[in-house]
């Protein structure tokens, strides 16, 4: 009998502890009355965590920021956030959002409306593409935090041997010829993923086209510009890469990280990629996993152009910080965002995590210039960059492109028209994706 009572007491105390724990998990305020803001971030080198700690300390008790890490893949980050937000989850206060998902999040009513004065404050001095990426229906709906762009990376020695003049804008044709002449490859991202849309969009916009002609429209009313001269020019670049045999091994399963590794290991002497590859190469040289001489041979210039005399529109990426419409501490969250995206934090984040700042003035910071010798090329590239399609249906458009433009070797002059028809059918609800 005594044993049974002990068991019951045990269960009761376990339930009490569990209930207490759950209350602690669900609570968003500390005992002192300081609201705790939950910031859902994309994984990085710990930079956002440091910013959260710094802003917590600087707030003098106005708020504290806790960080929760989302999956590494942008599409999976969206999946998790959207499902939580659709359930009116009040545990999200701040979220690091890929700019391509800003319109969908805003259109669904998941983002808190930003006061006019803050809209002004958060967009002043920010590169134009980053402001566009954080804007939906003429309103700034999230704060630009960092603004990524892709550059053309090359091994100086190989480019020189090929006679490639990298002081002038390089075209895809020249790049294919140089890689073929030197028996090397061009690192591109041919995986059936979002990175494929980044590449296709950059080529179409660089050729003077656009993927979506009326981004504000409802899904079934969207008009696409993939089946166009620009679309066919993009397809031709892929056909040329395949025909010249300069795609390199594993092109159809290569994302940005795999491309960076291929370049590091000498499998490709040219690549298009985000600036994180520089920090990664530097670390590899310091750790001794790559020769210092190889790192010293790293060269860079702006994204390849589609033809001579036609300025390239490099890919634009980055992260915006949004405040949830369901947050119970929106005022504190707005204050926290102002701290997160401050010039000082953007500069420190660029140095620590290799992600370029959205504020143009950061590129004048001597520490940034020292850490990133290509700072001027990044700034130039950001100014010329074109955002990916800004639509609430980005996921369908992007998946449709990735599905029809992959594998790279299957791309023909028919690909633009077939992919356009497919995406339109998906948007009208007539096809599976």
């Amino acid at each position: 009998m005594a044993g049974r009572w002990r068991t019951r007491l045990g269960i009761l105390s376990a339930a009490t502890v569990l209930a207490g724990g759950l209350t602690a998990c669900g609570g968003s305020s500390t005992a002192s009355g300081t609201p705790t803001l939950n910031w859902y971030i994309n994984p990085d080198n710990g930079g956002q965590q440091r910013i959260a700690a710094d802003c917590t300390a600087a707030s003098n008790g106005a708020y504290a920021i806790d960080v929760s890490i989302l999956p590494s893949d942008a599409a999976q980050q969206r999946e998790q956030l959207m499902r939580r937000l659709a359930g009116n989850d009040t545990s999200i206060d701040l979220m690091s959002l890929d700019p391509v998902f800003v319109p969908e999040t805003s259109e669904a009513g998941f983002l808190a409306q930003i006061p006019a004065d803050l809209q002004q404050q958060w967009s002043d001095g920010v590169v134009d593409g980053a402001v566009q990426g954080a804007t939906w229906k003429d309103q700034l709906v999230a704060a630009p935090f960092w603004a990524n762009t892709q550059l053309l990376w090359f091994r100086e020695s190989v480019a020189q041997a090929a006679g490639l003049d990298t002081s002038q804008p390089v075209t895809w044709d020249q790049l294919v010829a140089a890689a073929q002449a030197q028996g090397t490859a061009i690192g591109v991202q041919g995986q059936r993923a979002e990175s494929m849309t980044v590449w296709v969009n950059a080529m179409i916009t660089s050729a003077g086209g656009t993927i979506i002609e009326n981004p504000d429209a409802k899904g079934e009313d969207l008009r696409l510009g993939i089946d166009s001269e620009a679309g066919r020019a993009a397809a031709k670049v892929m056909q040329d890469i395949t025909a010249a045999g300069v795609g390199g091994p594993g092109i159809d399963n290569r994302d940005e990280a795999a491309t960076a590794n291929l370049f590091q290991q000498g499998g490709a002497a040219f690549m298009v990629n985000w600036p994180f590859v520089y920090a990664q190469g530097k670390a590899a040289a310091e750790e001794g996993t790559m020769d210092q001489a190889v790192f010293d041979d790293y060269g860079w210039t702006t994204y390849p152009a589609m033809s001579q005399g036609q300025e390239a529109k490099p890919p634009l990426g980055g992260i915006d910080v949004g405040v949830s419409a369901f947050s119970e501490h929106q005022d504190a969250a707005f204050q926290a965002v102002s701290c997160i995206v401050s010039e000082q934090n953007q500069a420190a984040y660029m140095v620590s995590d290799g992600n370029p700042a959205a504020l143009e003035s950061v590129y004048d910071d001597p520490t940034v210039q020292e850490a990133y010798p290509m700072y001027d090329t990044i700034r130039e590239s950001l100014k010329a960059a074109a955002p990916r399609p800004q639509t609430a249906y980005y996921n369908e458009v992007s998946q449709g492109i990735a599905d029809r433009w992959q594998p790279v070797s299957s791309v023909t002059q028919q690909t633009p028209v077939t992919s356009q028809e497919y995406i339109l059918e998906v948007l009208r609800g007539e096809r599976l994706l």
Partner: protein
Amino acid sequence: MQTRSAGDVSVSRSAARKPRGSDKARSEARLGWYLAGPAFVILIAVTGYPILQALYESLFSFRLTAPGDREFVGLKNYGVILTDGLWWSALVNTALITVVTVAVELVIGFALAMVMHKVLGWLRPIVRTAILVPYAIITVVSAYAWQYAFALTTGFMNDLLGLGDFDWFANKWSALFVICLSEIWKTTPFISLLLLAGLAQVPADMTEAAKVDGATAWERLWRVTLPNMKASIMVALLFRALDAFRIFDNVYIMTNGAAGTETVSSLAYNQTISRLEIGLGSAVSVLLFVCVLVICFVAIKVFKVDLARARGEG
């Protein structure tokens, strides 16, 4: 005086066929219902409710990020799916993976079951543990291990086989081959465990008698062992076929449906989770459920699987 109608006759006939139990038997049956009843109700709640919800949602055009645009579309979602080549290609892939993996697993699983059955002494627990290890590994972990082994960057298989830069996951058939291989490695122990239970039920005196009568090992296997294991084999086939038909993890990790390796489960995931198209995704899930029901029906009716016998109640 009581008179009997025709109806009473039929009742008494059926009673004659199936005699009514004693009071004790009836009270035991009642106790059985009292004990199993709560579990039965919970089972209906946790399986029945989501199925009915999915059936209901499948009749709408409903996107999670546009709740205001929810619209009743009747059976349109089913029409879209059943007229789309992607559904049929995913169905063929899934059926192919099911047939290939279950067939190979049955043969290897039977051989392993024989080994586990025959081995004696101190070696028995070691052999049984060694054979069961792959089944203890989480599918996602095993999927990553196989992907890393065959990947261009981290893999050692290309070096081992002298295949150079061959990209296993860029081609439908080579990707499906690795997916099947991983599936077979992972779940053969499950089938061998079920078959081992069957082997243990084969009467030893029957095998002995066949041996005395001069039957060869092959004849004993075909004429004595396998016929006595029929129920176990059928249950193993049914369980594994259902499991294989729901394949998701391996495909998701290795190709995520690229190179034409989409399966029915990954298709449902894509519509529901990636696209947040709850209506279309629910319709795919309902069709997947119908496929599972068909497999169950075929296995139980056509192959006469007797689950009660397999549990040792026959």
